[in-house]
C-alpha cells in the first residue's frame, strides 16, 4: 500500500536514513527528528519502496504533519 510518512511533531531534521529506490520494511527507521533535545525516529508503516523524500538533514523548524517520505 502506498503511504506517506508525516512528521509527528515540529522539530529539526537530524538524520535522513533512506533515499528514493530503497526497499523498506514496516517498522524500519526512515528519518529522525530532533525535538526538545530528544531523538524522535519515524518509521515505515508498511513494506514498500521509497519513491520520494521531501525533507533534508539539517532542515530546521519543520512543522508537524509535513509530508516527509513517500513509500509505494
Amino acid at each position, binding site marked *: 500500500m502506498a503511504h506517506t510518512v508525516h512528521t*509527528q*511533531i*515540529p*522539530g*529539526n531534521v537530524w538524520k535522513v536514513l533512506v533515499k528514493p529506490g530503497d526497499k523498506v520494511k514496516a517498522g524500519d527507521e526512515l528519518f529522525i527528528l530532533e*525535538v*526538545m*533535545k*530528544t531523538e*524522535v525516529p519515524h518509521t515505515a508503516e508498511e513494506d514498500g519502496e521509497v519513491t520520494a523524500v521531501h525533507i533534508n538533514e539539517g532542515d*530546521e*523548524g519543520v512543522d508537524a504533519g509535513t509530508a516527509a517520505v513517500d513509500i509505494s
Partner: protein
Amino acid sequence: MNKVLVANRGEIACRVIRSCRSLGLATVAVHSEADAKALHVAMADEAQPVGPAKAADSYLKIGNILTAAQASGANAVHPGYGFLAENADFARAVGNAGLVWIGPRPETITDMGDKERARLLAKGAGVPVLPGSPRFLPGDLGGLDGAGAAVGFPLLVKASAGGGGIGMRRVDDAGGLPEVVAATQAMAEKAFGDGAVYLEKLVAPARHVEIQVFGFGDGRAIHLHERECSIQRRFQKIIEESPAPGLAPEVGAAMAEAALSLAAQERYRGAGTVEFVVGPDQDFRFLEMNTRIQVEHPVTEMRTGVDLVALQIRLARGDDLSEFDQARIQPAGHAIECRVYAERPEMNFLPSPGRLAVFALPVETEGLRIDSGFREGDEITFHYDPMIAKVITHGSDRDAAIGRMAVALEQFRIEGPSTNIAFLRKVMDHDDFRAGRIDTGFVEANKTGLI
C-alpha cells in the same frame, strides 16, 4: 560583584535570579528571539538578546553571551545547568573578559567533562569505578572485541564527551558491539564535536544515587548527603528524592566519603555532584561527576535548608565561608522532586510542544516548592528542553512527602501541550514505589500500570 548575567533560560534562570536578588545583586537575563517575552526576561532587572531561536546560534554562542555581559555592565556570570554550564572554553572566556565565573575552575570542568578521564581521576582518589575500556576514536576499532570481552556484557557504549543520558547505548552481546560503537561515535561527533567513546559495564538492576558536594577551592569540601535518582526514562531522571529509601546508613556515609575524597583531590570549587550506580548488594561504583548545579538540587535544599545557588555566588564573590563546615549541614525529613514534562508517556514519552493555553500551578504552601519558568500563554517550543516545571515536596518522612506530592500534582491545570502529570501521579500510588523498591528499570517494568 554587583551585577550577575544569567546565561540560561526557563526555570533555572528564574531560580538563579531569585538567589541573586536575595544577595542584593542586580541581574541580567539573556534571551533568544523565541524567548523575548519569557518569564526569566520579565524577572531580571535587564535583558540582552543573544540570537535566534536555535540554541546553537544563541544560548550556546560564547561570543554573544560575552557581548551581552559587556553591553550590560555585568561583572559575573552564572551558567545554570545545560547549555554552556560545563563548557570549559566558556568558563575560561568569562575569566579572560575580566568577569567572575560562578562555577568550578575550567581545568576541573575539562577533567570531569571527559567521562573516561574522570573515571581514572576517581580511581586515583580511591573511589570504586566500574570495569571499563580505554577510548575508541572514530575509524579505529582495533582491540574492540577484546575490550568488550574484558568489560563483559551487557555493557554501555558511552561518549567520552557525553553525560546526562546523552550519547549512551546499551549492547547485550559481542555481535552487536562494532555497529553500536560506530553509531555512537557518529552521534557523539555530531552532538559534542568529539567522537571518542568507551565501554563501561552495565549494572542492572541498579539504582542511581548521587552525592551533592560543595568545595571551597582550597581542598576543603563538604557534602550535603545523597539524592536517589533511579526513576528515569530514556536514561533521564524524572523523580528524585532524599534520603535514598532503603540505603544502609553506612553505605551512604561511605559514598559521601568517596565523593569528598574526589572533591578534595580536585580542589573542587563550588557545587558539584558525584553520581554512583548502586548494585543489588548496595555496592557502589563511580559513574560521573557533574560540575554544575543540578536540575534536582532543590531536593537537597528542601532537606538541608541550604540555598546552594546563593552559596555558589557567595563563594565566587569572595565571602568568608570558613565557618561553613560539615556541622552546618543537618538534614531533616524527606524531600521528593517530580519533573513535569511536555510529553506523552503513552507514546513512549514523545515530546509534546505547544502553547500553554491554560497554565495554573499549585499554590506554594508549607513543604511545597514549585520551580517553573513559564506563564499561561507561553510557548513550550521544540527548540528547548521539554521541562515545564519542577515540583518539590518535603515532609517529616517519606510518606508525608509523597502525600504532599500527590496533592500538588492534582492541583496542576495545564492545557495545550500534553504532560506527564497523570503518569507521575500514578507513580506516587505505585506499591513498589511506596515500598521504596525502585531501580533504573522501574518505568520500563511498570509501564502498563502507569500509562
